[in-house]
């Protein structure tokens, strides 16, 4: 076994190991241990990105650089989730972000996207089991299972239809939009701890959608762009009401789906970075709102530029619609204090997130120019 293969295997097993250690550790020390384990997981993911296991590609395990970089984003999302949490009493809840990140990472790398869907379903089942244990949460858990399973069955149905046909593309796009939790179409995830399951789950759905594009054909791409545009414009129309803020939480995934539909994988990767580090329930904070609204510097801003450059090759009318939608959404939906306050966040988690966002925004175009993607 060569070193890159060992690294790759370790990178997948690491979050599971972290979950076991965090769940076994005594409660007062669990947060510290979780931060260390998640940090080591980030280092491992970066190492796997830099030293890919070339033999794995021959055996069917995916070795696309965008997918590897996406798993780095998932690992940083886990680190941030752990850092911004206080010490949790519930052992299962404590281990949930590690386990869901491990399973979603495995789903992204599985040799067949169908297997990836199965692993996603398993991650969903575990997360729902943990979430719905307290009294009064049974129906909320059932809503999660229902929406996630509907998405997975839609994608499976699309995969069973002949490749490239319009019904297959439409079904797969609908399923992926539901899995990615795009706000008007997906489910309303719960506010308080959606980052535990939702962030890696939606990120994995975005990464899987890149791999399913080959089967979906043109209808798939068009449907993804249409769904993303609809979400962006709904965000713009909803304004700053509660509904608008809820829509704004999934703003980067809407842009990422447009990017996947337009074939701009690197742009989708940058939006995924914004989603993992600033999306979900972090979007209420000013630094996160600024990053999500594609303000420079930051990964979503660079992703926006890349997306528009790719979209203009694809279709001018859609480019104009996208630009107008993004501008309207930024003007109407970003919280007012998001423009001015809190340029450099106070807490450590926010600082890490801002640093990673800015670094990714610089490094990814650089790597693109150097031919890494």
């Amino acid at each position: 076994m060569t070193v890159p293969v060992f690294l790759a295997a370790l990178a997948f097993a690491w979050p599971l190991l972290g979950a076991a250690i965090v769940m076994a550790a005594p409660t007062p020390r669990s947060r510290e241990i979780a931060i260390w384990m998640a940090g080591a997981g980030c280092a491992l993911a970066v190492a796997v990105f830099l030293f890919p296991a070339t033999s794995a590609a021959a055996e069917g395990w995916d070795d696309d650089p965008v997918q590897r970089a996406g798993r780095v984003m998932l690992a940083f999302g886990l680190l941030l989730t752990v850092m911004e949490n206080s010490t949790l009493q519930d052992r299962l809840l404590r281990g949930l972000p590690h386990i869901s990140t491990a399973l979603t990472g495995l789903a992204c790398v599985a040799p067949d996207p169908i297997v990836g869907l199965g692993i996603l379903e398993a991650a969903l089942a575990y997360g729902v089991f943990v979430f719905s244990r307290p009294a009064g949460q049974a129906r909320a858990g059932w809503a999660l299972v229902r929406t996630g399973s509907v998405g997975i069955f839609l994608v499976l149905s699309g995969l069973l239809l002949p490749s490239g046909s319009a019904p297959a593309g439409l079904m797969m796009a609908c399923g992926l939009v539901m899995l990615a939790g795009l706000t008007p179409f997906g489910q309303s995830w719960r506010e308080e701890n959606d980052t535990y399951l939702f962030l890696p789950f939606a990120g994995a759905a975005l990464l899987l959608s890149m791999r399913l594009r080959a089967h979906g054909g043109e209808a798939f791409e068009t449907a993804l762009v249409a769904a993303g545009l609809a979400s962006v414009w709904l965000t713009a129309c909803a304004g700053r009401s509660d509904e608008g803020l809820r829509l704004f939480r999934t703003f980067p995934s809407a842009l990422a789906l447009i990017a996947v539909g337009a074939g701009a994988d690197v742009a989708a990767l940058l939006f995924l970075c914004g989603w993992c580090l600033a999306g979900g329930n972090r979007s209420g904070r000013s630094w996160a709102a600024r990053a999500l609204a594609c303000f420079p510097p930051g990964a979503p801003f660079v992703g926006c530029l890349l997306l528009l450059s790719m979209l203009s090759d694809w279709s001018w009318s859609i480019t104009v619609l996208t630009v107008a939608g993004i501008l309207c959404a930024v003007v109407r939906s970003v919280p007012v204090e998001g423009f001015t306050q809190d340029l450099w966040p106070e807490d450590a988690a926010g600082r890490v997130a801002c640093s990673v966002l800015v670094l990714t925004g610089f490094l990814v175009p650089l790597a693109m120019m150097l031919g890494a993607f």
Partner: protein
Amino acid sequence: MTLAVILAPLLALCVVARGIGFLPALGVVTAVAMLVDAWEPLQEFGAVCVVLFSVLPVWFVSRYQDDGARERTGPMVPFLALGLMVILQLATGTPAAMGEAPGHAGAAYLPAGLCVALAGLVAVTCRQAMVWQWAGLLACVDGVMLSGVIENQVMVVGVTALAGCVVALLGGMCVHRVMLRVAVAPAQGGAGAERPSARSGGFELGDVEPAGPEPRGLGPEAVVAPRIWTEAEAAAEDEEPLPRPGKADQKAASPNADTKPETDLTSPTAEEHKDKAAPDAETGSSDEDDAETAEPQDAPDAKADPAEPTETESTETGLLKTDPSEAKTEDHKPGVGRAVPAAEAPDKAPEHTPDKEASGSTDQPAPVDPEEAEPVPRTPEMIARDVWLRGYLTERGRDA
């Protein structure tokens, strides 16, 4: 193409239109459709999975009471599913659509599995009752697995089996937490032996009565429920504004009833009286609305005035599920303290078929009232039951 393949979408439409009752038939037909063409390990696995995922949930749900959730979706939902099936057939089933696709050169076929899955998706999306949504998801499992077996895609079959396990287990957990068990009372005396009577599993009193310290044989005049009855009646009438003559009569009679403070001692007697008074548990008309079924306190009034009550009693009893085979499985479940049914009855009055035990209890909203429960020595089973009930009530409250 076999008859079973054609029947499967029809049964899926029945699931969309009528509910989970058609799911076992759908599962069996789907399994037959898989096994007719070939008898390979893949087909056998798919057939076994489909039958398991279709029969076991229905058996599981049959042990719980219908939660009586009113379905607000209109009658158009099955037609929506049918329309989607037709569109799918037009888009994929015609030779023109499939001609260029490899593997289906020129052959017209019915995408039966995907039609079943579409019907299931429509049921999940459009129906509001949790059990119905569960049935829809399980129909999806059937359909995708049938399609995967026909297309010979091992991965899809495996992933669908996993998803089916997840849906069946988590759905079963949810059903267990939000619905009430059906329990059958043991036959009391020779007269009651041949007539099954069902009660809600949450409120059995009969199991603890023999051990209870209270004296038996209190007359019906000791029943104090009319005061409670009027309050619950008023609450129910808020929901159901239409006046009904039977209720009006009962209301008029209620002020004359005895209003001395309510004691727990009355309930056993009331229970026995009612069991003897109810003519036949099976013959109740089940078309009463929710507000009517939500009247647990009808019964004591009925006993105070034995001339009029049998109609309402038989209606209530008939609404409960009766299944004699459940008696043995349920009897080991101990009853709860007196206060428990009292709290339960007003809590979910609009949704659940009540049990008759609530007649002898108060209308205190607290789930477990220590003062009420004091006279009865609390066995560990009762304490466990209280804990369960408290969680259950929290569940109902939050979900509402």
